[in-house]
């Protein structure tokens, strides 16, 4: 592999951009050790707290979303921070740093007051941690105690709390994990920047409610006949996470660790192109194991090589110049839908979609071949999303002499 996958994030060198997110997969040193052996560059140990913090878990705490036969399009959890307090986590940090000196051992922390944050930082630094992530973003359970996303939803509280942590940290970079449950996530990142903290992680889970049992009327997950809102992760939240990363990257000069719906190296590459320097993964690791790192690194390296890049650093932020406000989008150069008659399987799905969701621009005759009327087609882009065949229904310039743009 000739490509250099390493990145530097907040002054810390990662052998590749892939980091295990603070989650069940990083809740003890044995699991993290297996992750490191599989090839992960770093791990953020599951969020810990001072010994006096009571962590009262409710079970079951997870439920998945299926769409047709596709399982786990999204995962909801009502898990809380780790039941393992700082006394155990500092031991894990020592062991992991000793056994894996080249890997990045990070810890995630959450405190109820200034003294707790300071104590957590002091003890983790003493244990030799490489990076500290602060969760200002857990959307369930913690906000009721004034923690988690209760902090992250207020730029003022974010700045104040981040400053406590940053001031306490003598040696180790501090990053703040942000919540998408906020009107302007870039404002939260700006608050982090003002605090002096070193970077941000975007995003924590998206608050949601996964569904309702139609027989018992109890929403999922059913905890003794009741349920509550949870945090949604998995492939479904990737667009939200990409948007958040782009908004932060465009407005704030601060290192970003991206997370939210990363399943393949393609997802990871998208986050890097939008300005992230590292990519955290959780749900896909929980589902298919630490071994998913193999195709993440192999696929990313092959992609970079195919595109003529020598390192990950070269692609970071490369998509950002193409992100503008809606008013800045060009209005000329109309496109039209085109059907490849060789590929069309005569299903008529695009016909219905354009008829009832578009501009009645697709004709469907007795031969069942979809034909686009370029006078009526405005190039809205909906029909290609419905076509079951790759590269059959595409957008392109209007045929010569056809279409409104040409008339």
């Amino acid at each position, binding site marked *: 592999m000739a490509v250099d996958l390493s990145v530097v994030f907040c002054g810390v060198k990662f052998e590749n951009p892939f980091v295990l997110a603070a989650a069940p997969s990083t809740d003890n040193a044995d699991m993290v050790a297996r992750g490191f052996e599989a090839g992960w560059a770093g791990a953020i140990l599951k969020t810990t707290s001072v010994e006096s913090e009571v962590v009262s878990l409710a079970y079951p705490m997870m439920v998945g979303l299926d769409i047709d036969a596709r399982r786990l399009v999204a995962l909801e959890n009502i898990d809380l921070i780790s039941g393992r307090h700082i006394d155990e986590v500092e031991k894990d940090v020592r062991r992991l740093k000793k056994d894996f000196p080249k890997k990045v051992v990070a810890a995630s922390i959450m405190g109820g007051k200034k003294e707790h944050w300071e104590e957590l930082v002091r003890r983790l630094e003493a244990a030799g941690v490489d990076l500290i992530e602060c969760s200002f973003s857990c959307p369930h359970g913690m906000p009721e105690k004034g923690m988690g996303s209760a902090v992250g939803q207020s730029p003022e509280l974010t700045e104040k709390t981040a400053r406590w942590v940053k001031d306490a940290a003598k040696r180790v970079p501090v990053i703040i994990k942000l919540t998408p449950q906020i009107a302007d996530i870039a404002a939260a990142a700006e608050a982090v920047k003002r605090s002096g903290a070193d970077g941000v992680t975007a995003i924590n889970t998206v608050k949601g409610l996964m569904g309702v049992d139609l027989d018992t009327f109890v929403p999922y997950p059913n905890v003794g006949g009741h349920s509550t809102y949870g945090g949604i992760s998995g492939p479904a939240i990737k667009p939200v996470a990409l948007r958040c990363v782009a908004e932060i990257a465009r407005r704030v000069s601060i290192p970003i660790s991206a997370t939210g719906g990363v399943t*393949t190296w*393609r997802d990871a590459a998208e986050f890097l192109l939008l300005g992230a320097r590292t990519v955290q993964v959780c749900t896909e690791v929980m589902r298919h194991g630490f*071994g*998913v790192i193999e195709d993440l690194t*192999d*696929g990313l390296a092959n*992609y970079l090589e195919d595109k003529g890049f020598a390192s990950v650093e070269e692609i970071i932020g490369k998509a950002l110049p193409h992100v503008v406000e809606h008013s800045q989008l060009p209005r000329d150069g109309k496109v039209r839908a085109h059907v490849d008659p060789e590929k069309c399987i005569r299903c008529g799905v695009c016909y219905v979609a354009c008829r009832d969701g578009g501009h009645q621009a697709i004709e469907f005759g007795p031969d069942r071949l979809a034909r686009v009327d370029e006078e009526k087609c405005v190039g809205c882009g909906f029909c290609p999303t419905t076509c*079951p065949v*790759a590269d059959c229904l595409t957008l392109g310039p209007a045929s010569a002499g056809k279409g409104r743009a040409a008339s």
Partner: protein
Amino acid sequence: MTERVTRDVSVGLLPHQAAAEAGRCLYCYDAPCVKGCPAGVDVPAFIRKVGSGNWRGAARVIREANVFGGTCALVCPTEELCEKECSSRLLGGPISIGALQRLAWERGTAGGVKAGAGRGAGADLGADAGGTAAGKRAAIVGAGPAGLSAAWELRSRGWDVTIYEATDKPGGQLDWTIPSYRLPPEVVAAEVGAIVATGMKLRTGVRVGREAAEGLLAENDAVILATGLGGGRASGAPGEGRPGVVKAEEFLARARQGRSTRVTGTADTGGDLAGKRVAVVGGGNTAMDAAVTAARGRATRVTVLYRRTAREMPAWPREYRGALAAGTEFLWLVQPVAFEGAGAADGAVKAVRCVRMALGAPDASGRAAPRPIPGSEFTIEADLVVMALGQGSNQEIVEAFGLAADKAGRPVVDPSGRAQVSAGALPAGHVLKAKVFVAGDLGNGGATVVRAVAEGKRAARAAAGELERLAPREEAGSNGC
């Protein structure tokens, strides 16, 4: 009638179909499909890469276990191997692993995408696999899939490798008896070419006899024997020497070399099979290939004669179905007793005299033993009789190398494929330097291409002292991702 056969090399999966198929893979822990693959291809790992669009990575995973990944994607009986074990067979049906492998190979290897579906795409093996740094020499006898697989493994470890091939070109069975409608010659040429181009010496037209064997045993660190079997068996029935009675291996080779679905220009059939009646004797996969090839050659009528029933027939169900689809008729519980012709004993065959059989107690193979029913003889007309009775052991090579052999004449080998060379194999003054291994049909009596490739790999790794790494599970990793 030729177009009724559905097993031709077709377009294969389109990328979006592959994505949908890959999306069904469960990525099983300790994946059963990997255990079903003789070469131990890490199936979930390559499917994951197909799903992520990492085509080169997918091809690499396949190649690391099977240097004939493209050939095997076309000829592997996947429903008998990996797909038979697939956990998804209990859901909507097994994942189409063979089809995914084919697309991964075509898109992920050098020139594969440009070459397009059904075209050849050799592995990205590099021009030369790295000098002769190992300071070791190997002689490979036989340039079929087993021999070439062994040769590639040793070349990639820096061995000095020489292959001795009896025919005029490398490829072995791949370019000999496998019908071209299943395995196009350009696929074989590309894969074989990529392997040979890694810096090995290839000596074609060389039959290794006793004297040459002595030299190889004395001068090499390893000798890997991968010659294949000794040719088609005869029935012993009177008239078998008549023109028009041919062995299946010869018939299929002629058809393949003609690059035509017809058997043309042969003296004993009068050329094209149009208007001819063909009888195929035997019930194995080779018999099915011969029957389909004859049907595609426009024979008027193709009849398979088998002495047991469909239940005992060794041909795989898919091959049987293929022969039926080609319009072949089957006569069960029938055995030829004489091949009859017009006039003299050397006159061309005109008919097969048969006897009906009854099944009795199980024989050594565990199948019911057929016994002739006295007085049940009858005759069927035939202009061409193809004898597909399996191939006998290769006595020539066993004797040349002085190998210990079992009752069936097959070399005795240990689990790594290592053979025993008898003390008298070398004349006085010669020192037995080489470790001798057997790979492919020569040792296993005739099996799949993928098994030959796996045995070649196994022998090479054993020769290189890596025996401990041979278990497919260990090679493949735990769950492939």
